[in-house]
């Protein structure tokens, strides 16, 4: 199979989805262009200070790559990713494999290369407008840095507000500003496109009754999120906009612009319940006295571990959850407090006053999405989100164009990351051919052998940007430091007019003077050292022999008013750097050969989808299935809520898998043992009484889940008590028992969200609506009652819930402490429950009682977790390394999981997860060699007491105690160089390359004397 196509990929939208797709594809040598209309990448990500369900900071993740650190920085640093910010798509021609894209680079008016970020232009700019991320509570100038950590880190002039007064020109010493800057049209040729358009918040002002924009203390959830951010002007403690006082009582009103056909928003935005919960919890953490109340219709905590989070918010944080739609908010004239009426559980009305009201805004597709979609030829659905097939969730209507994230349907970060990975898998399936990839068998980079060097040849480069450093520092005094040092071969002042030119100049000097150590002193730590590290590699020096002293931001800038102090600090920093460069020992990071086969355990929908995706990219797959048939739990599923035929899908997938030459299917087989680490696993499979050994580079667990079987409500004792799945089978076969039933009662959350199973099974509400609609279709006269706690028909499923209500399905809510009661005297089922609307106990005879019993993890998970070294979460599903950055990954980066073994999910999600796991696995094994992390830890055996602290401290399981020698060992392929073991080791037996204790002490010595 030869794929003669352009391998370059265009990602439109630089938010979480776009960055994730880009990062995965970049690992496979695709050239990725990230087109972003904003002047910086990140989308809504930089807005988030804390994320659910851990309330941890969302900006950086210390977890295995990809993404290792922060997706924004990773994207910036990846050599295969090019960021096209401030650009708009203009036109598209061609077809899958060969698209021609034209786009417009909007004028930035500031030359990134020339600008030294001195901020004087901002100080003099007279134009002030609302800042984009400031959510209406913070201002910015017409010339501005989009946000503090913006990538690219550059000012930009917003054309619409700029008056072109020219004040900024006068103060810009590098001459970086050009008010005549024009937009430029450019062209690109790519093979595939991923759309990650993201979302916009609903315009809360459109719901005038809540007073957003009129009442000062009514704020949108976006504004509140910003107020909670430590980087905002509030310092993380929201104050009332009217008087700046800290609120004592805050109300959150849910579903503003969601589940509300009256304002054109028929769908559920899926994440507002959780983000409001997070906002309330974090507010309480910051201010224990604060009272928070959330007014909602149904709490939709259907994501992994979300139900526990919701319970914690109620029980540990004391957040009040009140089920009541709010009709209007009033402002009190003097206090500017807000007042509204809500209904209590007993039907009475209550009026309450709050200091602040936060409107939980729903999500809408971004503005002008229709035009863009038209240009691309991509079809949209009724709500203007991207139209996709349920079983091909990341494919748009145009072949070669894929979609991920909130532009497909409102969703949270983990789902977005999964979907973006799945879109990357689609791109790979189209463009990649594993067998055709370029493999470097030999040395991965040339490195001059300087291990036996007799003397050092150090070059010091003081990188100034048009004299900016010289204004704040006495450069001559600094250079005098180097006069007496015999190891220093040259001291050069480099004028950095552009990164590339500066880097080239240094590169030439290194070659000319045969330097073995380089010290750079200057501005802009990250960007410059990144450019220079590759320079050093290029001139065969090896990256560890360069050190960087930031005498710009850390000296000249922060001590701008005290030049002698700044100079003295700069001197000690440079000396410290010099010391470090001298102590650095040439060392080459290790690497390992990666085995290309992938083992997929489990032949259900998600496993099949993983296997197919990998095989389409040309990778070898072994698929192990315990039973003698492929298909898993989907074999007993017939139709989806959206009406798709599951059996047809399954037949198609199974036949494709069985016919694929790249997939070896082992039925009636079981994984017996798994050893090794990422890139090289060794597994033992028992197949038909025989044992088979398999070598593979990655493993995907798609071991499924099972329908939980109820142990109550006469299940198994009365033949008319069924589970949703068996009811579905009857309906699909139009069997009389179902089709002729006159009264059907469904009870939700039987075995979910209770003490034994404190998680939500996510799919049951949809199942109930699906089966209720099906029954109504077969027999419109049937009475269907759905007894529920919260209807969790999230996203576009909301439409079907609405439809079911419209068709006369009766939904009655019950409280967990007053569960429906069922009696079965002489075979007749009688269900009684309390209806809070009519405030009466209702008792009715049911022909069929259908129990939504939910999904349970496979009991086999425990055994698998044990042999494969995986963690299970408290509910018995596989636990991910990080719910956001690595949602399908174990800590050892070669093991992945998907489908029901990960969490309860609908079929579309299982397909998505299967593909996503495949994309993540294939990004790992694409390269025949993978390098180990830099700055790994090592053990000085003479000092090691074998106490094992490092073993328990290591977050990556990269430590073991050798049983024979009683000494700690480092497993190089798992060590990430985080240094935790170094800190925990009492006598310094654990050290880290380039950060040895003696090095650090010597450096400190230089700094503090």
């Amino acid at each position, binding site marked *: 199979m030869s794929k003669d196509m352009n391998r370059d990929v265009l990602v439109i939208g630089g938010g979480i989805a776009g960055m994730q797709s880009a990062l995965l594809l970049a690992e496979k040598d695709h050239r990725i262009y990230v087109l972003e209309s904003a002047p910086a990448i990140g989308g809504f990500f930089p807005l988030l200070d804390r994320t659910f369900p851990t309330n941890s900071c969302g900006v950086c993740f210390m977890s295995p790559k990809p993404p290792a650190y922060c997706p924004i920085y990773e994207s910036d640093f990846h050599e295969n990713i090019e960021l096209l910010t401030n650009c708009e798509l203009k036109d598209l021609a061609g077809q899958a494999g060969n698209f021609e894209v034209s786009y417009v680079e909007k004028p930035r008016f500031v030359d990134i290369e020339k600008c030294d970020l001195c901020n004087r232009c901002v100080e003099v700019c007279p134009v002030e407008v609302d800042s984009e991320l400031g959510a209406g509570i913070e201002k910015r100038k017409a010339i501005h840095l989009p946000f503090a950590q913006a990538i690219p880190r550059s000012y930009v002039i917003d054309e619409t507000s700029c008056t072109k007064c020219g004040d900024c020109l006068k103060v810009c010493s590098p001459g970086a500003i050009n008010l005549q800057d024009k937009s430029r049209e450019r062209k690109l040729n790519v093979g595939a496109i991923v759309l990650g358009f993201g979302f916009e918040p609903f315009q809360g002002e459109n719901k005038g009754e809540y007073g957003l924009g009129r009442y000062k203390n009514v704020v949108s959830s976006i504004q509140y999120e910003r107020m909670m951010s430590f980087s905002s002007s509030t310092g993380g403690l929201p104050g009332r906009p009217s008087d700046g006082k800290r609120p004592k009582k805050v109300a959150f009103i849910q579903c503003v612009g969601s589940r509300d056909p009256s304002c054109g928003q028929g769908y559920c935005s899926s994440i507002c319940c959780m983000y409001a919960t997070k906002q309330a919890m974090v507010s309480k953490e910051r201010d224990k006295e604060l009272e928070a109340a959330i007014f909602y219709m149904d709490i939709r905590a259907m994501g992994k571990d979300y139900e526990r989070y919701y319970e914690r918010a109620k029980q540990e944080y004391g957040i009040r959850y009140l089920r009541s739609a709010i009709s209007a908010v009033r402002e009190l004239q003097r206090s500017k407090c807000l007042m509204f009426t809500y209904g209590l559980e007993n039907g009475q009305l209550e009026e309450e006053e709050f200091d602040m009201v936060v409107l939980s805004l729903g999500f809408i597709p971004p503005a002008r999405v229709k035009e863009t979609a038209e240009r691309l030829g991509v079809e949209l659905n009724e709500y203007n989100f991207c139209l996709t097939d349920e079983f091909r969730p990341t494919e748009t209507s145009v072949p070669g164009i894929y979609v991920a994230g909130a532009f497909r349907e409102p969703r949270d970060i983990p789902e977005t990351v999964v979907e973006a990975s799945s879109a990357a898998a689609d791109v790979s399936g189209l463009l990649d051919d594993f067998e055709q990839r370029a493999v470097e068998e030999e040395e991965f980079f040339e490195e001059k052998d300087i291990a036996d060097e007799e003397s050092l040849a150090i070059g010091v480069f003081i990188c100034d940007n048009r004299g900016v450093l010289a204004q704040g520092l006495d450069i001559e005094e600094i250079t005098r430091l180097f006069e007496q040092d015999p190891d220093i071969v040259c001291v050069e002042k480099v004028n950095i007019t552009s990164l590339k030119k500066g880097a080239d100049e240094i590169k030439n000097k290194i070659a000319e003077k045969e330097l073995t150590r380089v010290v750079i002193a200057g501005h802009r730590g990250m960007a410059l050292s990144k450019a220079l590290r590759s320079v050093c590699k290029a001139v065969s020096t090896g990256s560890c022999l360069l050190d960087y002293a930031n005498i710009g931001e850390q000296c000249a800038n922060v001590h701008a008013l005290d030049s002698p102090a700044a100079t003295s600090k700069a001197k000690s920093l440079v000396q410290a750097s010099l010391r470090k460069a001298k102590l650095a020992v040439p060392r080459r990071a290790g690497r390992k050969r990666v085995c290309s086969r992938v083992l997929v355990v489990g032949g259900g929908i998600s496993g099949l989808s993983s296997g197919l995706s990998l095989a389409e990219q040309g990778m070898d797959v072994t698929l192990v299935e315990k039973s003698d048939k492929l298909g898993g739990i989907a074999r007993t599923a017939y139709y989806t809520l959206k009406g798709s035929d599951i059996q047809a899908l399954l037949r198609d997938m199974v036949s494709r898998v069985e016919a694929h030459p790249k997939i070896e299917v082992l039925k009636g087989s079981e994984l017996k043992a798994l050893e090794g680490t990422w890139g090289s696993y060794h597994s033992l499979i028992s197949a038909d009484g025989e044992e088979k050994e398999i070598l593979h580079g990655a493993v995907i667990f798609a071991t499924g889940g099972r329908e939980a079987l109820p142990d109550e409500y006469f299940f198994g004792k009365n033949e008319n008590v069924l589970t949703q799945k068996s009811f579905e089978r009857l309906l699909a076969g139009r069997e009389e028992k179902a089709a002729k039933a006159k009264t059907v009662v469904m009870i939700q959350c039987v075995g979910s969200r209770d003490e034994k199973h404190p998680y939500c099974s996510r799919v049951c509400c949809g199942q109930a609506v699906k089966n209720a609609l099906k029954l109504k279709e077969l027999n419109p006269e049937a009475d269907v009652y759905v007894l529920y706690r919260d209807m969790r028909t999230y996203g576009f499923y909301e439409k079907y819930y609405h439809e079911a209500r419209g068709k006369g399905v009766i939904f009655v809510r019950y409280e967990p402490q007053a569960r429906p009661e069922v009696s079965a005297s002489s075979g007749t089922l009688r269900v009684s429950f309390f209806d809070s609307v009519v405030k009466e106990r209702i008792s009715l005879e049911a022909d069929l009682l259908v129990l939504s019993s939910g999904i349970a993890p496979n009991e086999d998970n425990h055994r698998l977790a044990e042999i494969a070294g995986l963690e299970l979460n408290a509910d018995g599903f596989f636990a991910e390394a990080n719910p956001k950055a690595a949602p399908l990954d174990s800590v050892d980066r070669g093991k992945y999981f998907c489908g029901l073994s990960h969490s309860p999910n609908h079929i579309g999600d299982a397909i998505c997860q299967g593909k996503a796991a495949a994309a993540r696995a294939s990004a790992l094994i694409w390269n025949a060699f993978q390098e180990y992390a830099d700055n790994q830890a090592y053990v000085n055996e*003479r000092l090691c007491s074998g106490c094992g602290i490092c073993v328990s401290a290591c977050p990556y399981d990269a430590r073991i105690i050798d049983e024979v020698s009683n000494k700690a060992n480092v497993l190089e392929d798992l060590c990430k160089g985080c240094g935790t073991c170094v800190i925990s080791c*009492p006598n310094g037996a654990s050290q880290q390359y380039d950060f040895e204790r003696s090095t650090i002490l010597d450096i400190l010595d230089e700094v503090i004397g």
Partner: protein
Amino acid sequence: MDGLDGVQRMKSTIIKVENKDTLRSLRKFLGRLMESKFVEALLVPKLLPGGDGFVQSLIKDSRMLEDANPIAPTMAVQSARILSELTSSPFDGRIGVVLKPCELRAAVEMVKFLQVNLDNVVTIGVDCPGTYEVGDYAEMVKKDRELSPQAFLEGASEGEIRPRQGYNFRECCQICEYPVPLNGDITIGLLGLDHSKEILLMAGGRFEKELAQKFSLELKEGNSANREKVIEKVTHKRREQRVKVIDELKERVNIIEKFMQTLSTCIRCHNCMNVCPICYCKECVFKSLVFEHRSEQFLNWADRRGAIRMPGDTLIFHLTRMSHMATSCVGCGMCDSACPSDLPISSLFGLIGSELQEMFEYVPGRDAAEEPPVSVFKEDELQAEAGSE
């Protein structure tokens, strides 16, 4: 009794003392353990030939128990250190080890750091009324050749333990809140009992059944009310003393200058580290190359500051040692006994250690299964949000 919450539930029985000779009865019990092969060997303090002190001895021949004294009123060496040597590699058979409460706690602590292996060890904890400095005891014997070791138990039955002959207990014993063993396989109880008549024998956990069978002991649930009361009385008194000592010390070290002043007489002999049962490193970083400075380096430092103290690296030595092991410090006070400059190292560790231990809800030596704070990360510990007020 906060600190004693972790005390293992043990069953107990009473051993009758013959002829008011407590020591002899104890030796007899230990002898039976050896003769019945319940243990192959026994580690127990034994009288020095000169009769003026005791030293831990590993006994293989039960006849050698003649001079053994499981209630020796001195602690020349912290036995956890000996246990670490003794159990460093696998061996056959079981060893019984007689330990004071602080020795037992240190041993349990060392199990967590893989420095002691108790798999083949039967720990025999003995109530401790307090110990004397080795030199003081020798003098006491010199003054009174007839001094009976049993005399040191006077007052133990009613919790009124007084030091003898004008000598005082070691300072750390005066403020020790753990006069009874927390978790030995066998515990020998003396507090709250008339030791001239009876000794309490407690057994729990892994050897309980074997002991009961082999020695036909009638082990019963529960502790005597009087014993509980006496233990509470002793710990209460010592806790009061502890608060006093710690408060006084706080005054001496509450600002950095005073703190440095307090440690200024350190001669960097490293004795405190050498005798510490918790300092388990094979080679301390302070004895390694990292702290072997070049001559030029010393002169550089002196040049920069005008003058430097010699020997150097004293403050950093104590602070580093503290940061490594203050959470595990059992307060045995061996460091104080070994310090030629009389530095209050033990109470300094007590001051810092107790705050740290409280912070992590950690009691060193309480339970081998309890993970030391340095090796675990709990998401909800030390809650403080970066950037918050």
